[in-house]
């Protein structure tokens, strides 16, 4: 069974005909070529496929593409505006919050949703907000620092330059 749907991805409207059993992550990656969204466990455990659906972070492997019909999807490709990186993308680079990079798109989108709801989270709130995003490289410390730095939260541990001087 196929169904015609309209997906609004990063502000662009796409009319597609999709098999109803296809998940959003597969349609984003294979039909729209938006491979910034990663497919990890495909079971809602790892968070690599996190996208924003109507502004809320969701696992795109647990959403059928037909369920996203008519809704707004934001992927990592949609964060930079006119080639200028989002503040979170900048702080991830500044803090070296990336190693292999596989978890990064999902991490940044979870962080984006967190900061939209809670502009100045504590470190604990950041860790809770990112609990559904697994990173097997970094040990999370630099990721948490990068999110706090992007928020300007009083909990932030200072810029990397300051830390080196300490």
């Amino acid at each position, binding site marked *: *069974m196929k*169904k015609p749907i309209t997906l609004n991805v990063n502000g662009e409207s796409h009319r597609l005909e999709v*098999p*109803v*059993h296809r*998940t959003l992550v597969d349609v984003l990656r294979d039909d729209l070529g938006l491979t910034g969204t990663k497919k990890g466990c*495909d*079971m*809602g*455990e790892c*968070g690599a496929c*996190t996208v924003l*659906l109507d502004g*809320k*972070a*969701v*696992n795109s*492997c*647990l*959403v*059928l593409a*037909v*369920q996203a019909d008519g809704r707004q999807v934001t992927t990592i490709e949609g964060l930079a505006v006119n080639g200028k990186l989002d503040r979170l993308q900048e702080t991830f680079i500044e803090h070296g919050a990336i190693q292999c990079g596989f978890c990064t798109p999902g991490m940044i989108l*979870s962080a984006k*949703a*967190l900061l939209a709801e809670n502009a100045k989270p504590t470190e604990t709130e950041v860790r*809770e*907000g990112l*609990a*559904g*995003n697994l990173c097997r490289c970094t040990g999370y410390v630099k990721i948490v620092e990068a999110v706090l730095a992007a928020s300007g939260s009083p909990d932030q541990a200072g810029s990397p330059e300051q830390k080196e001087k300490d």
Partner: protein
Amino acid sequence: MMGHFDYLAPKTLAEALGALQDRGSGAAVLAGGTDLLVQLKQRKRDLSCLISVGSLPELKGIRKTPDGMLSVGAATPLGEIVSAAGLSREAACLAEAARKVGSSQVRNLATLGGNLCNAAPSADTAPVLLVMEAGARIAGPGKERVVPLEHFFTGPGATVLQPGEILVAVEIPQAPAGFAASYIKHSVRRAMDIAFVGVAALMVPGADGAGAARVRIGLGAVSPTPMRARKAEAALEGQPFSVELAARAGEIAATECSPITDLRASAEYRREMVAVLTRRALVAAWESAQGGAAR
């Protein structure tokens, strides 16, 4: 990769009930999908039709009814329940349990109705709804019924829902004045994990202030269904409250449950933890009730 199935997105509850009846036993209700889609991917279920209830107006939202009841639509995402903690004290209790489920991404999809209809003995929202004596409003062909949540679960993965029926809402009656509740989830990891024991406690202080007039204890993951520990409750009611008495109630609760050994924990460990965590949940609820009284 999932097998092939049809997908229907009815616009009204009546349409959904009709579709469920037409499609028969190969059809299932799709709410948040965080359990169902995984079961389909793992080929643990084989379905010919998914009927999406995620956008049915009758199943959405949280509202207070004129008689003080809190009605939570079955298709309300857990994330929305977490955000609605300020609506009432009952809403705050449910929110405390809801925020312990999965991750924020899962909670933005997973619904309260899904957590209950999936009927895992470890469902985090169940113990707290049991102590608040919630009811399950169920719609079927041509009629609706309300089943006390205590009688909703019939076994692991099994509920009283008959073929053709849909859970519409969870109804939480206004709790007695001065009540306080707590929920303790015990798991290896603090997030993204399944409880090996969950304990909810609700206490209503008596007029003399020395003990609880009403006590309710809900246990998760230690019997085939979420359950009330009624003998433990009876040991506390009307008695002057003390940590020793709470500990004795915990020992009684441990004898009332019937845990199994699985990959997460042994039956013996679970039983020990029921004793410990029931004591802690009772003390937490009691202290919270005292704090409320002092204000």
